[in-house]
């Protein structure tokens, strides 16, 4: 009896996993293209900088933050300065704080899965898991784990292959990196179509553009974040009052 039950439970569990995987996979296909392209580029970059494939392979598993991994190559080539390495990481990855605040609800209550979800919260996994409409009956925790895991697998395999075959790849991939831009445009648009008020979306674009003009492409992220935070805080009061007068303020 008990054996039968465990067996049925196992089958049930397998179905949960399969359904979650099937629902998650299509969302990650654009990331596959983008991460393979960027990952290969990163692996090749490490290869030509004189590092064996172990470096991109292990770094893609442990760091798993694309832009930071590119920067780490420079850190490894420079003089030993661990504090500078830490400070730069905190600066470049400060946007994760925003993601975390937005995910306080979703990345909780999934048991051990939460640890991995938070560990693997790169731009792309955050964007998909935040906006995806998970179909009825699909396990939310497993859906989000598969999105994160598949994304990390794409990045890991791309950068490892790039590290191994570095100098052998020759085909015209120029412009393929636009896949990431296209993906964020779609996600932005999806969010736009879903929300009633566009103040926040417009503030995000406008402030980032202004900061880009003022601080240049290498230094505009941190000022943009502070300005966005400040603006949204100032806008907060009237928006909240608006929500409560409409009766649906949460």
């Amino acid at each position, binding site marked *: 009896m008990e054996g039968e039950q465990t067996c049925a439970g196992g089958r049930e569990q397998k179905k949960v996993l399969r359904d979650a995987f099937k629902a998650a996979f299509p969302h990650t296909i654009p990331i596959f293209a983008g991460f393979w392209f960027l990952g290969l580029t990163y692996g090749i970059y490490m290869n030509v900088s004189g590092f064996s494939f172990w470096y991109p392979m292990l770094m893609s598993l442990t760091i798993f*933050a694309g832009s930071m991994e590119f920067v780490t190559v420079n850190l490894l080539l420079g003089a030993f300065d661990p504090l500078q390495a830490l400070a730069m990481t905190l600066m470049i990855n400060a946007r994760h*704080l925003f993601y975390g605040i937005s995910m306080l609800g979703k990345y909780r209550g999934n048991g051990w899965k939460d640890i991995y979800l938070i560990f693997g919260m790169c731009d792309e996994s955050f964007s998909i898991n935040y906006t995806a409409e998970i179909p009825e009956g699909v396990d939310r925790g497993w859906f989000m784990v598969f999105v994160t895991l598949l994304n990390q697998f794409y990045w890991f395999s791309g950068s490892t292959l790039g590290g191994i075959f570095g100098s052998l790849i020759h085909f015209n991939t120029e412009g393929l990196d636009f896949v990431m831009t296209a993906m964020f445009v779609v996600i932005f648009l999806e969010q736009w179509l879903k929300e009633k008020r566009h103040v926040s979306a417009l503030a*995000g674009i406008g402030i980032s553009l202004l900061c880009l003009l003022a601080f240049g492409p290498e230094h505009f992220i941190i000022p943009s974040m502070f300005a966005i935070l400040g603006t949204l805080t100032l806008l907060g009061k009237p928006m909240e009052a608006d929500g409560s007068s409409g009766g649906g303020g949460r």
Partner: protein
Amino acid sequence: MTLTQQVITIGMVVLGTVLTRFLPFLLFPAGKPTPRYIRYLGKVLPSAVFGLLVVYCLKNVSPLSGSHGIPEFISIMAVAALHLWKRQMLISIAGGTVCYMLLVQLVF
């Protein structure tokens, strides 16, 4: 750099990254009610952040030199048009990317 120094450097990057990802969850534990202000931010930040990410992707586009950002502009319009028409994420992304690759490889 020696191997040990390399390991320490990479370790610092891992530490920094993990810190930025876990900090909000540690600061606002599940048991206690999350402050109203933080919940408000959690609701309004994503739209602004997606805007920031779009700008971030385009940060190296210069309107005054090279191809003047024309291939980027056309391709983003294509992505938006496809998406408003079909509302299929993969079609919009693939269409926009192919459009961009053709433009930069053949036209500009």
